[in-house]
């Protein structure tokens, strides 16, 4: 007993916290009995079930939020109207706590996949809308005038000049939305949707290792979304824009 204390326990603290992560990783890969009753928990099949639900909700919400916010932001930005509204919605979106939104939904609308998907979509809309607006407004007016001078229609100006030049800003909004959406769909587990939040908020059932396992998988999911969206951004960004920025960096 006595020899375990003092400097020895300080040394042991390091493997101890690695041990928690190790246990969490073990939880992901192998099944065990739950903390209270003898239900089987953990293991790849349960992780996969939770992950699949969360991915379905997140992807659907991201697609819906983009489908709603992008055309609206692009159109408003192109016309140069509604700046106050576009910026105010972005600011308001930041101030709404995910937890409050989900809790209000549970209290007044109800639980279930449909409700959670709608709530998660709502939190994805503001950053996409605001960034689409700002991205379109930031496009050099000279370039737009030149395009009009070449005889392009308004739709062509949007599609061939403004949108490509606005890609980095627009995708910045989509990436922020993706982080919001994954964070919120995690909490969706308090509204009866079995996402990875079920592990994170279920210490009583899954133990600390389950909680940390959930956090690890959620973090990996968010990073995977980020990598995919970064790749999408790279393909959509016009080559000229990349070269121009690289040149600006060299000369600076």
């Amino acid at each position, binding site marked *: 007993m006595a020899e375990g204390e003092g400097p020895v326990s300080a040394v042991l603290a390091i493997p101890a*916290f690695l041990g*928690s*992560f190790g246990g969490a990783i073990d939880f992901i890969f192998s099944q065990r009995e739950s903390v209270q009753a003898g239900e089987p928990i953990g293991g790849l099949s349960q992780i996969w079930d939770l992950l699949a639900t969360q991915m379905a909700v997140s992807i659907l919400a991201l697609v819906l939020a983009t489908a709603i916010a992008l055309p609206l932001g692009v159109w408003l930005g192109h016309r140069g109207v509604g700046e106050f509204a576009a910026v105010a919605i972005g*600011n308001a979106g*930041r*101030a*709404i*706590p*995910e*937890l*409050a939104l989900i*809790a*209000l939904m*549970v*209290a*007044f609308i109800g639980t279930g996949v449909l409700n959670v998907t709608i709530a998660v979509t709502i939190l994805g809309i503001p950053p996409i809308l605001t960034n689409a607006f700002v991205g379109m407004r930031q496009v050099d007016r000279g370039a737009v005038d030149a395009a009009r001078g070449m005889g392009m229609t308004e739709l062509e100006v949007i599609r061939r000049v403004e949108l490509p030049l606005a890609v980095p800003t627009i995708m910045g909004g989509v990436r922020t939305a993706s*982080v919001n959406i*994954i*964070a919120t769909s*995690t*909490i969706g587990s*308090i509204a009866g949707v079995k996402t990875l*939040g079920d592990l*994170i*908020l279920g210490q009583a059932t899954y133990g*600390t290792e389950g*909680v*940390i396992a*959930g*956090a*690890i998988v*959620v*973090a990996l999911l*968010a*990073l995977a979304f*980020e990598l995919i969206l970064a790749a999408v951004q790279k393909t959509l960004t016009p080559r000229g824009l990349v070269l121009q920025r690289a040149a600006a960096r060299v000369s*600076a």
Partner: protein
Amino acid sequence: MLATLTTLLAQVQIREAGSGATTCQGKNEAFCPSYVIDNIDDYVSPVLEHLVLVLASVLAGFLVAMVLAVLSHGRRWLIPVFIGTTGVLYTIPSIALFLLLLPITGRGTETAIIALSLYNLQIIYRNANSGLANIPRSALDSGTGMGMTKRQLLWKVELPLALPEIIAGVRIATVSTVAIATLAIFAGAGGLGEILYNEGVQRGVFKTNIVFGSLLAVSLAIAFDGLLILVQRFAAPWRRARAL
């Protein structure tokens, strides 16, 4: 008149208290102002805890962000390194980050403050960095022409001119943190999440607390935002002069 009204109210309250299912909170109506007024003391410490979480993490994030921004200002190769690192941290959802820190820092307020600081760090660093990068060449040349050293240039020209953008970053960080800090409850720290989750969702979906907790969070965000708009004005008086 007022006295009769008070006695009438008191009678109503006594009658309602007698049968649980007929009171406002007993019926779990959308919002019961009387419950909030009667139990106002219960809301004080979550609000104070929330304020501590927000202020401590914004301050810590701000200080580290400024050190990083000044460091990378003279060494441009550091910028992508810092933006990349802080960006990865920002990508991890707050609720996951809180619990990933669990084995290292344990449950509690410190863990929540560390996680929230990392988010603030990213937002404020980005803004400080672009603020410092966008200083007009002419301002730098004037300073150099007046015989300023590099250090004087930084403190007397570059940082003051970058201040509006830095404060804009602090504003975004603060407002976001007020919202995100509600999740600190899952890291074992208190804050408004206690009202929303422990005393709301977990207490048989008690609507009054969910509504009031949401109201408190949004009001706090608006109050901080307003305060920082004022700071922004005082910190950059030349901007106001131009606007007038």
